[in-house]
């Protein structure tokens, strides 16, 4: 059983500070949805409003179509996994997992059996009698997931649960969380400031900044078609040119900059004189001769070998630093430092974007 979540114009104020500002989003039943944003952007507040620890100042939170107003966390069909996991250190693992069932009056034999089942599900068979302090970080993580699953929630809420793990474990747990979500079919709402996590695991991502939802889309669209400058620069790297928009037509426009004139896709909201154009480093191509359009002469300043790709830094004659990433598959020649080359990009791969939803709207 899983339920969808509707956030309808949700607002949350702490005194005069607006933590969450008119957020609208419909999370589908069974979806893996991530809220992605820097710390202080309001994503944890959203999670706490869904779980019931904070009442929204305005707007409606619905779970499974039901208005959650006035429902305490212990009355909602949600289970929250805390950032520090908040396992009960004085109970053995199996009592931790079956605590939600104990609350519901399930007898001890059945609780124990259910705990063993869940331990198998999270790949920790036989750990029921251990104490929490005897577990490693990754094992604690699994116990926390099992404890949340035990109450058969319709919605699982995860508050940066992977942030305390080391890199290798974090990557394993990503795949594992995703697999558990697919196996159980429960709606997952995941909070993170790590774009890699959000993009790799989610069906859809909501990018947040200053309490506002900037963009809701699937991971590919978030990366390839960001709607504004905040989303573009928070998720992934960019080369940024600022200038003045000219000749806007058919969703494309000419941007006049100090480094030359460039053509790119244009978001209608991007207007005025101080407008920015964003190009991902992997779309910056080097060539010996000037390209047909969007081409700038540069001098290579640095070549960094990163393993699967090579990061090349260059400087334009007008003094702007640009970065290009070349795949390490032998398809392109790696330039040497000091070489003079032309860098160009496809107009369809670059976008002229407004700054963010905080400005103007």
């Amino acid at each position, binding site marked *: 059983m899983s339920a969808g979540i509707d956030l309808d114009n949700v607002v949350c104020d702490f005194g005069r500070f607006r933590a969450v500002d008119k957020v609208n989003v419909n999370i589908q039943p069974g979806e893996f949805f991530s809220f992605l944003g820097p710390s202080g952007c309001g994503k944890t507040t959203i999670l706490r409003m869904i*779980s*019931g*620890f904070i009442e929204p100042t305005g707007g409606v939170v619905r779970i499974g179509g039901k208005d959650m107003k006035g429902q*305490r*966390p*212990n*009355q909602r069909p*949600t*289970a*929250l996994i*805390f*950032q*520090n996991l*908040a*396992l*009960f250190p*004085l*109970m053995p693992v199996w009592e931790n997992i079956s*605590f*939600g069932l*104990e*609350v*519901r009056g399930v007898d001890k034999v059945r609780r124990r059996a259910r705990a063993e089942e869940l331990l198998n599900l999270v790949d920790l068979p036989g750990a029921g009698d251990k104490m929490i302090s005897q577990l490693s970080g990754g094992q604690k993580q699994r116990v926390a997931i099992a*404890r*949340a699953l035990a*109450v058969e929630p319709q919605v699982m809420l995860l508050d940066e649960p992977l942030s305390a793990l080391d890199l290798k474990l974090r990557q394993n747990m990503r795949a594992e969380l995703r697999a558990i979500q697919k196996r159980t079919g429960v709606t997952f709402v995941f909070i993170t400031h790590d774009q890699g996590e959000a993009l790799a695991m989610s069906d859809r991502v909501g990018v947040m900044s200053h309490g506002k939802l900037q963009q809701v889309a699937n991971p590919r669209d978030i990366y390839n078609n960001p709607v504004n400058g905040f989303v573009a620069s928070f998720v992934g790297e960019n080369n940024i040119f600022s200038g003045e928009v000219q000749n806007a037509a058919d969703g494309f426009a000419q941007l006049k900059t100090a480094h030359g004139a460039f053509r790119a896709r244009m978001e209608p909201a991007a207007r005025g004189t101080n407008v920015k154009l964003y190009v991902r480093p992997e779309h910056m191509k080097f060539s010996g001769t000037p390209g047909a359009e969007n081409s700038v002469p540069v001098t290579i300043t640095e070549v960094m070998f990163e393993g699967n790709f090579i990061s090349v830094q260059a400087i334009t004659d007008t003094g702007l630093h640009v970065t290009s990433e070349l795949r390490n598959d032998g398809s392109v020649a790696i330039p040497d430092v000091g070489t003079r080359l032309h860098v160009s990009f496809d107009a369809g791969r670059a976008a002229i974007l407004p700054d963010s939803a905080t400005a103007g709207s």
Partner: protein
Amino acid sequence: MQALFERYGSGLAAAILLLTAFWLLILLILPNITMFESSFRPYLPVVDVGGPKDTYSINNYMRIFGGDVPMSIFGFEVTIAPRVKVFLLTIFYSAVVTVITFIMAYPLAFYLAKIVSPRSLPTLFLLLFIPLWVSEILRSFAWWIILALKGPLNVVLMSLGIIDTEIRWISGFSPVIIGLIYTYVLFMLFPLYNAMQSLDSNQIEAAEDLGSPWWRTHWRVILPHAKPGIASGAVMVFMLSAGSLLVPSLLGSTTSGWFTQTIQGVMLEEQDWNTGAAFAFMLLFVCTVFVTLMMRVFGVKLSDIAK
């Protein structure tokens, strides 16, 4: 020890060690050993001290068993020595005081540790501490006045129509219990507060999120975490109550003998320090055994309390 010398240098570290040793050995252990030794010797005129009559025996300890009075213990009528009766009642009512202070301090400690905003905490602590600025004697007298037959408590209760005739508060053990609770409640509150404050609030939220009603969260999460605090608070309140002399003397009635009063009578009125010492050690010993038993029952280790 090594760290102490490294941190403060040899001069200061030695001074700290010496002062601690002085306090422990000269002011605490030595007088107690002297008392303990004298508790086994008879009370003799000065000329006989050190003479042939001055021999070790447990006669002083046996003096607690003199005489017979009726007493009812859990409905069983027994005859018992009056001093033993006072002794048992002292232990019993000290335990009662400990339980009541716990019941009173637990919600307050939880409120201070987990609910109140950190900004108003200093004010609340100040309010709790202000009564301590007044001496214990004055506070006990204040209760004596409050509880008097024509005192403020009865006047207020009667004017509110809660009671028709004055209640004689100062009779039996109730005023002593009230006085002891008032005097020692903070000794329960602060260990409890410390223990609860160290609990990760996320655990309380996690329990609630898993569907737990508030009472079960307390029973399964908060209370077990606070156990060391409860234990150290309970030990302090129990020991201080059993060893209190002032409150039972001031607020006691004719029927509320406290064993410390018995010891005081033997020592100061009969001038028999040997028997007084014997009684004092008996109280200390039985209280220690009682506390150890209770800790065993509730599964608390001594090292938990030290935390």
